[in-house]
């Protein structure tokens, strides 16, 4: 009864550059990541390789109305639409549903610092705050910050007039987005969906949020699964969008199919030691027998405990699989981490690096996800 769901578009941009080939090659070669240990010291991160924005966002006025995470997302979405052969297809773009995993926009760091500094000595702090915000906030900043405006900008820039939904909630937003897209197409509730997310790691406000909880690694770069000396995330700027499509629709239009997304699952374990491993075990077991030469792409964070549990779950489900941590290639991209990992797996299948892949991801604070991709 359930319909097959295939991937007909992959848009990827990160610290490594952009595109399917670049990322598939890096995955095949275990390429060294691009890490900046200076600019946000003591926090290492993977900075975005500069994009030629004009190629996907032709109007400067559109570029100016967006924050970096939105530009990155719109860019990656454009790559996916181009790859799927949909960019010029107005009819398809009116049917195309969009599901975006998003956080929020960047603070104006200079304005915040000036206000915070001034607030300490203000006689009437409330009035001072109002006065400064009224005069110092850019009116359009709000729109550049709103979570659903990545989807809004995809509509405006790429002419996608199908409906969009924005899911939030850090890493799990990316898992929920992929799972929901898969379920809707499989059930016949949609025929074609653009799903993905984008994360700009190069911002101190987000580092602040994660550091408050003690979730960042402050030593130099180390691979995700060997960070026990100083566990934590090394974030990376990355965006990924996928065009998911009902197999019959893709076949009817002769689209190139990169892979079939056979399963996508999302879970909420009540976190305690062992719960992440159990959640991933259950989801992976439900995917059926895996090929011995499967690829395992992990969106693991590098955070203490849960990263080891994710490694154990992967080892249990696919003991002979080649395991690749997305974080080792492009860093941890929070809302985009799971979509990026799916995109990497799809790129690997598309370029013949692997014939089958599982993707896993335990979020830094809550939520677990898993997916399986097979050759179409």
């Amino acid at each position, binding site marked *: 009864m359930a319909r097959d769901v295939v991937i007909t578009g992959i848009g990827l941009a990160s610290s490594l550059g952009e595109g399917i080939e670049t990322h598939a090659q890096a995955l095949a070669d275990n390429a060294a990541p691009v890490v900046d240990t200076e600019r946000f010291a003591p926090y290492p991160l993977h900075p975005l390789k500069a994009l030629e924005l004009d190629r996907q966002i032709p109007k400067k006025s559109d570029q100016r109305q967006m924050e970096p995470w939105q530009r990155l997302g719109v860019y990656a979405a454009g790559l996916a639409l181009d790859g799927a052969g949909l960019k010029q297809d107005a009819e398809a773009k009116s049917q195309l549903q969009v599901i975006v995993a998003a956080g929020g926009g960047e603070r104006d760091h200079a304005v915040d610092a000036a206000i915070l500094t001034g607030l300490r000595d203000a006689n009437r702090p409330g009035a001072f*705050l109002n006065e400064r915000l*009224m005069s110092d906030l850019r009116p359009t900043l709000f729109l550049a910050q709103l979570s659903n405006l990545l989807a809004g900008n995809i509509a405006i820039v790429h002419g996608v007039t199908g409906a969009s939904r924005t899911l939030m909630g850090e890493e799990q937003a990316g898992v929920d987005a992929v799972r929901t897209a898969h379920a809707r197409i499989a059930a016949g509730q949609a025929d074609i969906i653009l799903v993905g997310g984008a994360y700009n790691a190069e911002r101190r406000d987000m580092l602040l949020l994660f550091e408050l909880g003690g979730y960042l690694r402050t030593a130099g770069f180390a691979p995700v699964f060997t960070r026990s000396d100083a566990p934590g995330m090394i974030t990376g700027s990355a965006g990924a969008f996928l065009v998911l499509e009902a197999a019959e629709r893709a076949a009817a239009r002769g689209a190139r199919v990169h892979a079939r997304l056979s399963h996508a699952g999302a879970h909420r374990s009540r976190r305690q030691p062992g719960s992440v491993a159990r959640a991933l075990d259950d989801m992976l077991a439900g995917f059926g027998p895996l090929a011995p030469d499967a690829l395992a792409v992990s969106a693991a964070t590098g955070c203490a405990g849960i990263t080891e549990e994710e490694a154990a779950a992967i080892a249990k489900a696919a003991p002979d699989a080649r395991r690749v941590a997305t974080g080792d290639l492009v860093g941890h991209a929070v809302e985009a981490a799971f979509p990026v990992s799916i995109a990497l797996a799809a790129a690997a299948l598309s370029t013949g690096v692997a014939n089958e892949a599982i993707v896993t991801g335990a979020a830094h*604070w809550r939520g677990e996800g898993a997916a399986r991709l097979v050759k179409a």
Partner: protein
Amino acid sequence: MSASHRDSRGRPIVAVTGLGIVTSLGQGKDANWEALTAGRSGIHRIERFPTDGLRTTIAATVDFLFDRPFAAPELSEKLATLAAEEAVAQSGLGQPGDFPGELFMAVPPVEMEWPQKQELAQSIEGVADYDALLRVAARHKHKAMHELFLFGGVAEHIAERFGTKGSPISLSTACSSGATAIQMGVEAIRRGETQAALCIGTDGSVHAEALIRFSLLSALSTQNDPPEGAAKPFSKNRDGFVMGEGAGALVLEDYDHALARGATILGIVAGCGERGDGFHRTRSSPDGKPAILAMQDALADAGLTPDDVDYINAHGTSTPENDKMEAMSCSAVFGERMANLPISSNKSMLGHTLTAAGAVEAVISLMTIAKGRIPPTINYNQPDPAIGLDVVPNEAREAKVRTVLSNSFGFGGQNTCLVLAAEPKAA
């Protein structure tokens, strides 16, 4: 009961078996219904924070839940909790802390707020920039702030409290978010993935910066005096929306599942429609096409025609542009009938509860069906000659209402419409 009921497209019918609401008018369905049908406004002068130097000094805030300072996610969570408790209790579904269905939550975007940043800045000497804040954060003495300002925090806490199943969904489609939460619940039930869904829209985010942001976009009414007169949907002198707070919660359930356990059916979500708009970041397409299509999609999804609709619960924000576009779009869908088809805006009394609005207004729409009474559009003293609608002006009206179209439109080209209807006649 062996026969299974299906809608016109052969899908499970989605029943509503529980409703909950909290707004500036009060907590619970009874308090809200009494105030809404009396034409009372929940909009008042803001006392939560100083309003010196602000162009807008009014809002429909919910001020009766905390007697201490709080952050927006705390209020959003509290509002959602109260609305969900009311809805789940009414449904009689599951056990306390063990709701047998999935959670779909419209939650406002969050970010770290000024009081918390000020708390960190207290121990900083010199310039309180982000590097200095990071050094304070690195002491890991403020861990609770991390969880407080995560986007997924509110839904995670609600999932934990109510014991919902699956991965809780936190979503935003701007001002149509509440309707999208319902739509996602409907879809999950139609897929057969779950037999019940707890769908919530909540928003408790009226703080100084949030208000200033909307103010800088010139979206808010500045007619502060009297506060209760500021929201004037469809009036000639409307000049913007008024921010509001609240939550609406619905227990959705597979109709057969509800029947089998003898639940009271409050109505059904008969259809959903949604369309994107690539015209502009804040403005709708001037031809209203996406809104028109969203309404038509919702009716088609419900297997109904425009003639089946008895009442429209308008988005009706009281901004010059929305109300004009909505009136025009409704006329396009309903034709000449629009002159006599009642359409009213709850926002005239509740302000715009933003992320929550679609859910809050769905709850009110279902109450309208149950009670046979339409809440009015208040402050309708200067009709806009360009908008020839029956807005149920100023006073509630008795009416037999079986089918409601509820509209929600948002920034970023979000258009979501729901068709809510009375329980199907015995099949």
